[in-house]
């Protein structure tokens, strides 16, 4: 085997009160895909940021081509050929797609931007990732999934020797993921070293040449190509075997809990969407990036206005002009973009968990501190939120734990209809199972659960029924018996129901 292109030795890093990395080592070779996996908070992102010059390690050495380097800035990392796609989106929303792709590396002559080249090359990389928008489009008008693709295009345009991807697919659907995985294979063939982080073990299984597992800021073991299996990865990550990953059971469905008739959204006003969900049902909603799933949930929850249509919850018509109305009617929405819409990053876990229930638990306008404390005492263990204390600002939690805080906050409202938009985005396997278990429990208690997911495995594993959107249209519905990867994909790409079911 060739010598490592990038190597980290005994890296330690601590933040105020938290030791995120305790002597982690890692090496990646040219033409190799190294998958790094681990539970939420294991230290994956921190390690990657150190490799890419975003953060400095407390102790430990970095070697590039066998030579010791101190990578102190992003610029230095880039000049060494190391590029990082961050776990969280980092785009300047007021700039256009092209400007974001080449931010910091604009082709220029004496400072003068070569706009033509930016646009040409941007179009080329956008084509590679399969995002067909004009480079002049403002980033603020793109969906999360599309923004994620912009991030990938941006990293591709670096032409890096080491490309680090921290959960690049967390908001991509299967279709886009396949495009990305093909890209990765091409890059590998060209000798690029790739570090790939994902909580979707199926992907890891399909792409990785080697797997490195982190646990609690330490190396927990590694697997060579031949050793990679779902069970082996889980065992190293969690330290035990997980039985029955999708705890799905068929539920006796009850009354109609949510009834949607002729709903039109601003994104796709041409298509009226109608469906209903019964109490105790778990319904999955699938579709490609930009299919209009998030917009639909947002309209139901009163975040964006619906152009037309009626919504009934338990038979009572609801006019949700604001989330407040929707909550009063018994709805809850776990939003797709937790950083923007779900969390108060600088506020503590307690304040984030209780914010949606303060109104219910108030004592004539005053905070009910007992209830607030009780809520923390209940949710933090129930959701297995990993936090040093209840006052820790959520910005210092790992992504998965942040997600659990958001779900916990909405669980606390005890909704009748639970809407979840990409509930397991960036969540580790253990936590995923927790969330699935929670969805099951809710359904068993008679809550109607509607979840949007781009993770096909999860859609297949958890749904009683699947609604598939294609460009804003409800293109079909699959019962559990009709469910298959093929069928969902066909409907999601515009095929019709009969051929979809027949094909599988």
């Amino acid at each position, binding site marked *: 085997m060739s010598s490592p292109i990038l190597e980290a030795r005994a890296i330690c890093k*601590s933040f105020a009160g938290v030791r995120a990395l305790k002597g982690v080592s890692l090496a990646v070779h040219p033409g190799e895909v190294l998958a790094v996996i681990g539970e939420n908070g294991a230290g994956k992102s921190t390690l990657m940021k150190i490799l890419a010059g975003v953060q400095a390690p407390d102790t430990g050495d970095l070697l590039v081509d066998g030579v010791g380097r101190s990578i102190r800035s992003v610029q230095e990392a880039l000049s060494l050929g190391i590029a990082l796609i961050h776990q969280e989106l980092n785009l300047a929303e007021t700039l256009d797609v092209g400007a974001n792709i080449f931010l910091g590396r604009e082709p220029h002559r004496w400072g003068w931007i070569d706009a033509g080249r930016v646009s040409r090359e941007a179009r080329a990389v956008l084509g590679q990732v399969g995002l067909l928008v004009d480079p002049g489009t403002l980033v603020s008008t793109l969906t999360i999934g599309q923004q994620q693709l912009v991030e990938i295009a941006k990293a591709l345009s670096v032409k890096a020797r080491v490309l680090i991807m921290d959960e690049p697919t967390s908001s991509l659907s299967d279709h886009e993921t396949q495009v990305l995985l093909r890209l990765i294979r091409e890059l590998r063939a060209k000798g690029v070293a790739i570090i790939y982080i994902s909580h979707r073990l199926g992907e890891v299984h399909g792409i990785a040449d080697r797997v490195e597992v982190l646990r609690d800021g330490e190396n927990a073991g590694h697997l060579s190509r031949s050793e990679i299996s779902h069970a082996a990865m889980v065992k190293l990550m969690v330290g035990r075997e997980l039985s029955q990953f999708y705890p799905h059971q068929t539920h006796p469905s009850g009354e109609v809990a949510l009834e949607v008739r002729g709903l039109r959204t601003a994104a796709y006003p041409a298509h009226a969407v109608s469906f209903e969900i019964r109490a105790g049902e778990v319904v999955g909603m699938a579709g490609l990036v930009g299919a209009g799933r998030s917009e639909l949930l947002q309209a139901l929850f009163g975040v964006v206005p619906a152009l037309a249509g009626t919504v009934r919850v338990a038979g009572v018509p609801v006019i949700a002009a604001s989330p407040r109305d929707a909550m009063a009617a018994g709805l809850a929405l776990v939003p797709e973009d937790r950083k923007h819409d779900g969390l108060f990053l600088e506020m503590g876990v307690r*304040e984030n968990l209780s914010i949606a229930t*303060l109104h219910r638990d108030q004592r004539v306008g005053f905070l009910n501190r007992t209830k607030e404390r009780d809520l923390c005492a209940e949710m933090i263990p129930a959701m297995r939120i990993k936090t040093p204390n209840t006052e820790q600002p959520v910005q210092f939690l790992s992504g998965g734990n942040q997600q659990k805080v958001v779900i916990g906050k909405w669980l606390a409202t005890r909704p009748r209809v639970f809407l979840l938009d990409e509930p397991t985005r960036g969540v580790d396997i253990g936590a995923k199972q927790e969330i699935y278990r929670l969805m099951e429990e809710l359904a068993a208690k008679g809550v109607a659960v509607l979840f949007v997911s781009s993770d096909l495995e999860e859609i297949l594993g958890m749904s009683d029924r699947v609604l598939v959107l294609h460009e804003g249209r409800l293109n079909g519905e699959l019962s559990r018996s009709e469910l298959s990867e093929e069928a969902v994909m066909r409907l999601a790409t515009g095929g019709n129901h009969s051929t979809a079911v027949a094909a599988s």
Partner: protein
Amino acid sequence: MKKIFGILGLLIAVCLVTASLSDSFLSAYNVENVLRRSALFGILSIGVAFVIITGGIDLSLGSVVCLVGCALPWLLTVQHWPVPLALLAVVALSLGIGLFHGLLITKLRIQPFIVTLCGLLLYRGIARGFTADQTVGFGNEFKSLRLLATGKVPFFPGFDLPAPLLFLAVVAILAAVFLNRTIYGRYLLALGRNPQAATYSGISTQRMTILAYVVSSGLAGLGGVLFVLDVNSAQPVDFGSFYELYAIAAAVLGGCSLRGGEGSIVGVLVGAALMQVLRNMITLVTTRNNVEFAIIGAVILLGVVADELTRRIAAKRRAAQVLQGATAA
């Protein structure tokens, strides 16, 4: 909480220095004066702190002080309205202004800076219009009404509490309780942190924003009433001019972040007091006052820089300890 230690230290340092340089600083008369002025500015600063906490800004506050400060004597001495009616009118006026700002900001989504900058220009202009640029005041009348601002409450022999301090105490306690103990206070803070997430959490962000502007203008109105009762005369051209900057400076010094979501009432009070003590010091200690503002500016800047530097050194020391602990373990 930690954030206000720096500013509190600065206040204490300035007090000690002034006391050592001037015997009169700690005289009952002077302490009463400084307390009264701090109380007046404190009321304004608490108001603007509410707006700053939501992530907004209120530049109109000095002009509201002017408008209310001119309207009250004008209504009483020129229009001969009865006292309760005139008071009611100025209260309604200032609350109405806040409501107006809040509605423009929430319903029409105009930037707070623009709305309140227009307010700054507009309200002073209105005051200049209806007074025809004439100074208005109470002359020798309305002595009992003026006691609201000039009155004193015996505290212990030889030292009385100025009446505005009592107003401030009530306002500050209400504000602190509201911010820290009620759900609406929590909503305000949350809104300042992340308006989007606040909306998603079912908080009526518009109502909370409007509330903040109403509180700000309302307290500016109260401040205006007390200021004019204290000074006894108001000139529309410069009454309350620049007060918005002092109030905002006090709030920010006291730990409010202009990015929203942060703020403590105690800090704001300390910030307001600091500005007044500095000005008092300059008149007491020096014989030239034309560099007064330069000194205030320099002291604040030095204070903030010193605060930042000590914080850094402390953080570095702590980090070193953690590291040591880690390697030792």
